[in-house]
């Protein structure tokens, strides 16, 4: 028998006997013959562990890991060694959703800590147990606004939100019957006047903006909360949680909902996933939050303990009346970022941003100094910035890739702009090497 199946031949015989059938085939007797699959799958035969290793190594050799100067929703921040080793503990890794709280306090406690830390970073009052990613979290924020507004089915989103996020929000909007409109951008940021005009009809359930935005610009949302709230519209801010250690938070901007992707909290790039979305809100929206939420309580002996709470909101209770269908989320990744936030702590996350800021501005100045680049917009940025180049962008990217660099990502909708990102992991030597390779170009 195979190593994952503990059944010996005598086990099978004894078990069949108790069941009262004479073969494993008998267990499938009720399946109509017309739909039985009686062939072998057209798949490879069983590989031993070493063969699996060889095969993955072969596939891995077809990839080219690059020194990353790219962001756009996936940031190459430092990942402390501790985290991967702790989340590999099988008590975390192989547990199910904590539906039996008496033997799931481990999961429940870290989710409570996750919620607490995300609230700290975003300045919000409550938060759920995690979402799939930043894009779907933003789509769920939109659905929250719709559910909250009851009679409105329009949401407006700034064009300066990442195109990856917009793409997902659009999909959800279309199938859910939400009218999605776009607030135009003006000099790289959300056009506030245009937004106010769109709000005037009093039919908008929510406004979605982001910071830093798709160009890396730190937007100034002064007055946004006042304008939206004046029209009973929810103000939703998609925010990079890492940057929130130093930037004005959604809470401080007066947001009703904050959402975004936790990948920037030290998670490996991992070709795009698993990452972790977060969704946080003001206290009065807590019953509109989708997904799991953990609350503190006591057991019958008076011991402090944690439990899934407000479950009346959820799909397994409300079924089609639930605001969301979310069930599995990204729990283990929530643990990942929780441990990251604990390790980096109050000071470390600030330092990450300080170093990223310094590196990004250093690179930016060096690029401008080559004479081959100009800033797309002269606006404040943190670790990401968009520049136009006089060089052939695609040729440049390909050339630098061959030298081992991922030199930013093309800004969608342009043929000469690149979005660069510098995290605290990039050394001066790496930046200088990149720039001198660029200087040698064309």
């Amino acid at each position, binding site marked *: *028998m195979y190593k*994952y*199946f503990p059944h010996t031949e005598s086990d099978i015989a004894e078990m069949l006997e*108790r*069941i*009262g059938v004479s073969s494993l085939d008998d267990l499938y007797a009720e399946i*109509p013959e017309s*739909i*039985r*699959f009686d062939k072998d799958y057209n798949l*490879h035969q*069983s590989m031993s562990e070493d063969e699996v290793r060889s095969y993955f190594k072969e596939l891995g*050799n077809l*990839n080219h890991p690059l020194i990353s100067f790219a962001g*756009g929703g996936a940031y*190459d921040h430092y990942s402390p060694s501790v985290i991967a080793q*702790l989340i590999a*503990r099988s*008590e*975390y*890794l192989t*547990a199910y959703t904590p539906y*039996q709280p*008496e033997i*799931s306090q*481990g*999961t429940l406690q870290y989710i*409570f800590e996750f919620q*607490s830390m995300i609230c700290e*970073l975003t300045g919000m009052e409550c938060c759920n*147990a995690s979402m799939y*990613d930043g894009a779907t979290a933003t789509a769920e924020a939109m659905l929250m606004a719709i559910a909250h507004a009851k009679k409105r089915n329009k949401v407006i989103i700034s064009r300066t939100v990442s195109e990856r996020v917009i793409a997902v929000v659009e*999909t959800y909007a279309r*199938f859910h019957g939400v009218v999605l409109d776009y607030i135009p951008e003006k000099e790289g940021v959300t056009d506030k006047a245009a937004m106010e005009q769109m709000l005037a009809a009093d039919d908008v359930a929510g406004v979605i903006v982001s910071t830093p935005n798709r160009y890396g610009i730190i937007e*100034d949302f002064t007055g946004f909360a006042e304008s939206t709230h004046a029209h009973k519209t929810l103000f939703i801010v998609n925010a990079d949680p890492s940057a929130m250690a130093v*930037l004005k938070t959604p809470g401080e901007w007066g947001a009703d909902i904050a959402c975004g992707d936790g990948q920037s909290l030290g998670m490996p790039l*991992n*070709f*795009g*996933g698993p990452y972790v979305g977060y969704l946080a809100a003001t206290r009065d929206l807590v019953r509109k939050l989708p997904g799991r939420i953990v609350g503190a309580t006591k057991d019958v002996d008076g*011991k402090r*303990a944690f*439990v899934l709470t407000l479950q009346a909101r959820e799909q397994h209770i409300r079924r*089609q009346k639930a605001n*969301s*269908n979310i*069930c599995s*989320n990204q729990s*283990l990744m929530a643990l990942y970022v929780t*441990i990251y*936030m*604990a*390790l980096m*702590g109050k000071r*470390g996350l600030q330092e990450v941003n300080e170093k990223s800021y310094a590196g990004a501005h*250093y690179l930016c100045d060096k690029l401008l100094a080559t004479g081959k680049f100009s800033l797309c917009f002269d606006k404040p940025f943190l670790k990401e910035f968009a520049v136009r180049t006089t060089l052939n962008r695609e040729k440049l990217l390909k050339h630098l890739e061959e030298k081992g660099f*991922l030199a930013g990502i093309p800004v969608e909708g342009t043929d000469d702009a690149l979005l660069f990102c510098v995290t*605290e992991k990039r*050394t*001066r030597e790496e930046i200088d090497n990149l720039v001198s390779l660029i200087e040698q170009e064309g």
Partner: protein
Amino acid sequence: YYNKLIFEISKPGRVGYSLPQSDFGNYSLADLPQSLRRTAPAELPEVSELDVVRHYTNVSNKNFGVETGFYPLGSCTMKYNPKINEEMAALPAFTSLHPRQSEESVQGALRLYYELAHALAEISGLAEFTLNPFAGAHGELTGLMLMRQYHIKRGDLKRTKVIVPDSAHGTNPASAAVCGLEIVEVPSTPEGTIDVAKLEPLLDDTIAGIMMTNPNTLGIFEKEIPQIAKLVHGCGGLLYYDGANLNPLLGRCRPGDMGFDIMHINLHKTFSTPHGGGGPGSGPVGVAAALVDYLPRPRVVKHGDRYAVEGSADSLGSVSGFFGNFGVMMRAYAYILSLGKENLKHAGELATLNANYVKESLKDCYYLPIEGICKHEFVFDGLLDKSTGVTTLDVAKRLLDYGYHAPTIYFPLLFHQSIMIEPTETESKETLDEFIEAMRTVAREAIDDPEMVKSAPHVTPVRRLDETTAAKNPILRFKDLNY
């Protein structure tokens, strides 16, 4: 018993990280306008590395995983999560890839995605898969979007209803609602399967399709499925297969062959990736040939021997920021390669064997509402002896004292005292025999000492919780805890 929160071991000045010295000269965050900066620092913990390691080690010990003990949680397929999968998923040649690198530089990752998608297609009897959805429910939503997109692209705009059996998982109706579909429930027969006679009248040109699991949530194979498929297709609808229960059919029966047009698979169930305390999962969605063009963006395709990322014009759009939970896919593919075609089949039949063995061994103590051969799971409707006052909840809690995770309880909703048991194929006869003995002991205790059972668990890290107060006055973050 360790019961501190990380915030409670924090002290100003402690650090748990090290960052390189930077040497970029005089650039300073302080140059950012004050109006764009937060006013007070986030009150994150300040702890040393050992503090963190010890804390999350001790916290982990309050949890129960598959490697701790038997996890007979119905409808969750808590099979063994092989270690080689974890080893493969940690390979730096994959984990260090940025999702926006050029296709040229990620050929290995794209090939893995492509090959896994095609292995799933072979296993399901469908034409093609997207691996982008992040979880089962997300797969359902994506699948229903595909269903709607299909009708929309054909100009068939009236089809806004979806039929769901009354025994369905809660995510089914919820996904339908999020997708803008109206739910029509079809009742079950006393044998627990869809009542075909009651289905027929529901079928008209407003029906987008039907969502089913097969075997259903009672573990019963819906053997009328060929007829159901004929009827639904006949009215112009599509059939959606909820793959949560795929495990027992491996190598025996394929959803595509049954007539399903769309399905999702939970990689974290059938394909052995860990549940992680509630995710990350992965919910690939497969479709019949007629729906391939509607699959979400990005799509991974193969041209000659090169892999590329595309998205067709008719695509329903994006459902994920990038390619979905790629790390989960790596694990699932390692599993499929490990088992190979021959062992995949064994997984299904041994899961079925285990479930039937437990069922037959306990039906003299617990009430089995639906007799006959089940597939991967089955449902008891509480204790056979209804006189004790001991509920399904009590039985579940008492099992915790014996070192087991509880079965799924109070689902499906068809019965009042549902106990849903799914042992999976990775458990040995000895483990099942010990569990059977524990279940029998609890049944005896329910008669001999009902109060003790009703106050269980007794030896777990915490005992029964006050869930009412938790919901009435929610305390959802550290800051709101009052002492």
